[in-house]
């Protein structure tokens, strides 16, 4: 199983990149794919062109709220597992689970502990898991996410974006999360990457893995609200993803 997480500060287009990666994995027949929307704003489903009925966060709240009146004879573990499986959105090419809102006040140790086990068992059913992460990395830091093979840090071609990516990278190191490799992806690159930006990347010790050019097709799809999922293979953004993912999957294979 390959687990790829995409993270970055808001507005850098990480959900778009997540959607493109899922589409690429499908095109390469590397499924079944589990898409995990771990951004509380929940929009990956729009990009993929499907609707979300229920989020894990909402289920968790429901369980906590009605802890005394769960269906008779059912443990919370069983209840949560049932509800999470029922919340999964299924399509021919991928299944989608949305994490939803982060937790409110109160003690979540128990719920998160259950959740981690359930999500782990669920994701074992897939060849690829793609996680669209929020910048705060709640699910990583709370360890509700299992091991990640590749973390893609998405940034726009700006120093501020790169700083933010470096911060996330550092945060993860401090949190001692289980992340295999970290790669920097620059999104919406107009022409070349200016020297000064390259220096900035170097300074932060990041590995500039790939960049995605600004793509008019993508922009138009976004403006008209069309799901990115349907993007043409000829578009420059898709081509860039094709190249990047080819590299990423190859790297994974030869790792010792």
């Amino acid at each position, binding site marked *: 199983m390959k687990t790829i997480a995409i993270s970055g500060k808001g507005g850098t287009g990480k959900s778009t990149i997540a959607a493109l990666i899922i589409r690429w994995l499908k095109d390469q027949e590397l499924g079944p794919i589990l898409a995990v929307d771990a951004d509380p704003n929940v929009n990956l489903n729009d990009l993929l062109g499907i609707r979300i009925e229920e989020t894990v966060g909402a289920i968790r709240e429901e369980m906590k709220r009605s802890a005394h009146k769960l269906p008779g004879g*059912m*443990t*919370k573990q*069983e209840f949560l597992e049932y509800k999470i499986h029922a919340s999964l959105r299924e399509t021919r090419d991928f299944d989608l689970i949305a994490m939803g809102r982060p937790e409110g*006040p109160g*003690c979540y*140790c*128990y719920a998160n502990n259950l959740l981690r086990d359930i999500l782990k068992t669920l994701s*074992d059913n897939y060849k690829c898991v793609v996680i669209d992460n929020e910048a705060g990395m709640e699910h990583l830091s709370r360890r509700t996410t299992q091991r990640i093979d590749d973390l893609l840090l998405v940034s726009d071609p700006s120093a501020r974006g790169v700083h933010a990516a470096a911060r996330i990278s550092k945060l993860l190191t401090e949190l001692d999360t289980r992340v295999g490799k970290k790669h920097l992806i620059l999104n919406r690159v107009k022409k070349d990457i200016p020297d000064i930006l390259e220096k900035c990347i170097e300074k932060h010790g990041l590995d500039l893995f790939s960049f995605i050019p600004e793509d008019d097709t993508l922009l138009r799809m976004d403006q008209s609200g069309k799901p990115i999922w349907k993007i043409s293979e000829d578009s420059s953004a898709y081509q860039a993803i094709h190249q990047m993912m080819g590299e990423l999957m190859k790297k994974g294979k030869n790792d*010792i």
Partner: protein
Amino acid sequence: MSKLIATKAIRGAHTLVKRAEEELRLAIQQKGPATKVEFPNTGYYLPVSHGILGLHIQNLEGLQALLDEAKKLLPPMPSDKLWVPYLGNTLDAGMATLFADEIIEAIKYTQDPLPYLLKANPDEEHLWIGAAGDIIMRERGIEFVDGTAPGFAACVGYCPTNEIAVKIARELQEKNLYVFMSAATDGKSMAQQLREEGIQMGWDTRLVPFGNDVTATVHSIGFATRVALSFGGAQPGDYQRVLRYNKNRVFAFVLALGPVDDEKHAQAAGAINYGFPTIADTDIDQILPSGICTYEHVVSPVPHEKIVSKAIEVRGLKINITKVPIPVPYGPAFQGERIRKEDMHVELAGQLQPGFEFLTTKDMDEVEDGKIDVIGPEIKDVEEDTQIPLGIWVEVAGREMQPDFEPILERQIHDFINCANGVFHMGQRDINWARISKEARAKGFTFHHFGTIVHAKIHGEFGKIADKVQVRIYTREKEVVELREVARKIYKQRDARMADMTDEAIDTFYSCTLCQSFAPNHVCIITPERSGLCGAYNWLDGKAAFRINPTGPNQPIKKGKVVDAEKGQWQDVNDFVYNNSHKTLEIFNAYSIIEYPMTSCGCFECISGILPSTNGIMIVYRDYTGMTPSGMKFSTLAGMVGGGVQTPGFIGHSKQYIGSKKFISAEGGVKRIVWMDRVLKEELAPILEEIGKREGMDDFIERIADETIAITEEEVLEYISKKNHPALAMPPLF
């Protein structure tokens, strides 16, 4: 461990690595570095190097990299004078041996004629069949995963007589174990002995002759490696997962028969890396303390009549062959398998169709054992990608069967069905949900088989209480809806019985130490009448969690001798709390707020604290941020009560506990409540009302103050005095 055995293993490894180097040099010289190298019909390259190192060796030149790795691992020979710990070095030597084995075996496949017959079974002329192809590995490997075959015995050397060889082989076969044979000693091997006795060998009979050479032992390890890659989801190169998977899932061991030379010691060291111990019939040095293997690593000398049972014991193997007669593989490995909509043939019950699962007791003459009926359409009658109802009605008869066992057995239906490959199952009672995959359907799985599974497993696991089992599977809406109503009535009765359960009625509580990560000395004791203080765990959850994870944070605690029934103190519970609080808490009272009260982690839903002048207590819920009559806000109180220390006069607890008859019953219970925050008071109004009525007060809630009435202790006292609160007339708190 002894230096002697380490020395032998390391010396053996040196010999084999040297031999590999020599043979590789010769082969490259004669055939050229680009000569293709492979074990035939496998996608896993040379499996040990592929699984452990992630190498993709395809030609002689590629073997050089493997040789380099082997050399890197090879530890120096132990010196005569120096004594150091040897297990690490021995393990490295073992791994180097496996790499050397694989080089030597791979070169064999470049020879003409091939030394191995590339078939599943030996023929008249050829005894040795070499590495298994992937088809065999998948077909047979799945038996390891689903439990049909618990593991394999890698037999090296030969037995003193042919008769003993046959006896050992038969005994292993009876236990459903595979027998992998290799490594002749002085030209004699177990496989040849079996052949001389006319025993049928090959994958079909589970007696597999790999090769005459000691290096052919690597085909056993290679097989195990491929099982981890193929069924265990381990990635090539993720050696930790490959090894751990084998230790936990593949119950294999080495039987060393006859004299054990250095090179066989080296193979044994290789096997230990995988958690496979070695059992020898001759007197060799032992490696007893556990560490890598589940129990001992090398045990000897073991007499032939005991060697199989000893091996099973040392490997920690539980032989439990209750084969479920269904056309798909079956075993715990398939739990948690989700059938994707795309792969599904039919969905039963779930969100769109009605369903239920129900188990009941019948008299002996009312049950015909093994009778399974499907009422409604069978799988052949339903189109692909449809949803249909599902009712599973189980009737059990048995001399030892009691209605109390019904819910326990009924809850097992989920676990039973979930173990079938290609079948997904969730929930229980009237919220059940199942899916059957297209693949399982193609293999011949039918609705009838739900009954087959339940019948076989109840016999297998509850044979002591169930003598006869019959099952009816309903798939038509009319019957499912009708019978669901019948079942629902019984579910209700069972729940009522559960709700009436008291601490006195059972002899086991459950601990919860989930929160020790941040409150290291805190131990929750969960009883039927006192749920965990976070409100998340009740006694049933604790019980279920223990069943799912027997070494987890929820452990059963026998109550033991009653020390004080009123305060809720038991000898064995005291002992458990003492030992698990890192010896900081000696006495524990379950029902008192004043004397040795239960500690808290920090997860409590509510905090109760005494208000001395009122002779009563206040309760504040964690969402309430205002001031309380104790002069502290919830956050301040939490800091004082949490962290695993006993704070007499204060406890953290769940909301649910307030409604329990055991709520601070040592101090008189709910009647002591003089103040609650308003939200909590409203939420618990029905419960408080009921308790008030029981005590002869219709307006008990009225007598309890809240923040809209009083926020200082004086104000509370004034209010409850006016209202004639029962706490005022109770004995002093302390």
